[in-house]
């Protein structure tokens, strides 16, 4: 009798399938253009907001840095964020002006930066009534990352909201909170936020378990 690949952890519950690294060629599956593959009719990619989306249009950009200070050139990132009014829009549809979900990647080219074209999210309330500052949830997958890392991008110009955010406040070290704050830049009159993710060592980004 062949064993099933799902394992019981109690009489009532199965074990979650174990995670594995996305490996060096994750782009073939999740970022076809980056791998050099022809794209399909519709791809899930980094343009989360079209020009007619409601809200403040922004670009978020950054690098992923390893424990030696070197750029990670093969990371895939996934973003999940609320719309300008603070509501998540689960129905992914490329006909819509805005999608809450997007993907981006760092590559071997240039500065190895990832970027997302989106709108600034509104504040989101938690079930206990506390209001979280505007943020973008990010998941990082790459070769050498055995289970994806989960973090949040907050905005430098949301000083009051950030100070009151229960999630930022739950990070014991105020110094470490700063690793989640994206810096505002203006480039050709457009608003851009820079968010460099440091996987390890000095200035290591806070990663969450949830």
């Amino acid at each position: 009798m062949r064993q099933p690949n799902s394992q019981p952890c109690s009489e009532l519950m199965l074990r979650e399938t174990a995670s594995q690294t996305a490996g060096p060629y994750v782009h073939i599956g999740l970022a076809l253009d980056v791998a050099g593959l022809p794209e399909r009719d519709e791809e899930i990619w980094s343009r989360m907001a079209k020009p007619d989306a409601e809200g403040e249009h922004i670009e978020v950009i950054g690098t992923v840095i390893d424990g030696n200070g070197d750029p990670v050139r093969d990371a895939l990132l996934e973003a999940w964020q609320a719309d300008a009014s603070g509501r998540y829009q689960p129905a992914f549809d490329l006909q819509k002006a805005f999608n809450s979900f997007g993907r981006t990647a760092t590559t071997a080219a240039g500065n190895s930066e990832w970027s997302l074209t989106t709108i600034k999210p509104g504040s989101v309330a938690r079930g206990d009534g506390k209001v979280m500052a505007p943020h973008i949830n990010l998941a990082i997958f790459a070769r050498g990352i055995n289970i994806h890392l989960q973090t949040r991008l907050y905005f430098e110009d949301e000083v009051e909201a950030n100070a009151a955010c229960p999630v930022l406040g739950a990070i014991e070290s105020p110094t470490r909170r700063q690793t989640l704050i994206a810096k505002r830049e203006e480039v050709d009159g457009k608003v851009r936020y820079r968010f460099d993710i440091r996987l390890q060592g000095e200035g290591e980004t806070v990663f969450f378990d949830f």
Partner: protein
Amino acid sequence: MQDDNKRFVERDRDWHPPAYAPGYKTSVARSPSQALVSLQTSSVSELTGPDFRQLRIGPHDNDLLMNFREDPALAGAAGLPVGERIILFGRVVDQFGKPVPHTLVEMWQANAGGRYRHKKDGYLAPLDPNFGGVGRCLTDEQGWYRFRTIKPGPYPWGNGINTWRPAHIHVSVMGPSISTRLITQMYFEGDPLIPLCPIVQTLKDPEAVETMIGRLDMARSRPMDCLAYRFDLVVRGELQTYFENQ
């Protein structure tokens, strides 16, 4: 308030591979040295996620025998990839055994010779002009998904002096929220490279390795056509919250 009257069963991070697993060398500089910060109160940010039912998925997106041709004029047998023809199928359920319908399952893999169609793969084994190596589909009402492909080959990689990956297919599943998001790899039952692989061995529990093994399924194979492998995926269990805020 949006959809936050639920919880997901806590992830057992001793079951999953640790971030730092020095046998897999790349993890050494890519693993956080600080502890993860646990979100004690989950919110709509973690409890929701994308629903891809409106994504336009092409008719051959889950059929890797048909979805790539370097020369579109090639048709029939001339246009088929070389290798062991297989169906890869399974069911996505949560930890309580509940099917996960309409969820996005994506996969990617090397060709029969272990070569990836990726700019960065310079392995000697040749590309197959009729094989791309990418697939996607949504699970059906009962949580089933299905791909048709060729069995990938093992390949060498620069970890140890002579390290080879077992044949594997990368599998990505979204599940009902970003909390259930998971990327894993499916290995093939009986492959003697599995216990030698430093990436597989990032897992401490041999039972956890079992969750990543696709099983030969003769009943679902097609006589005179292709074999079948079954790979069920289990995502975190979803609980309703009945007693919140005292």
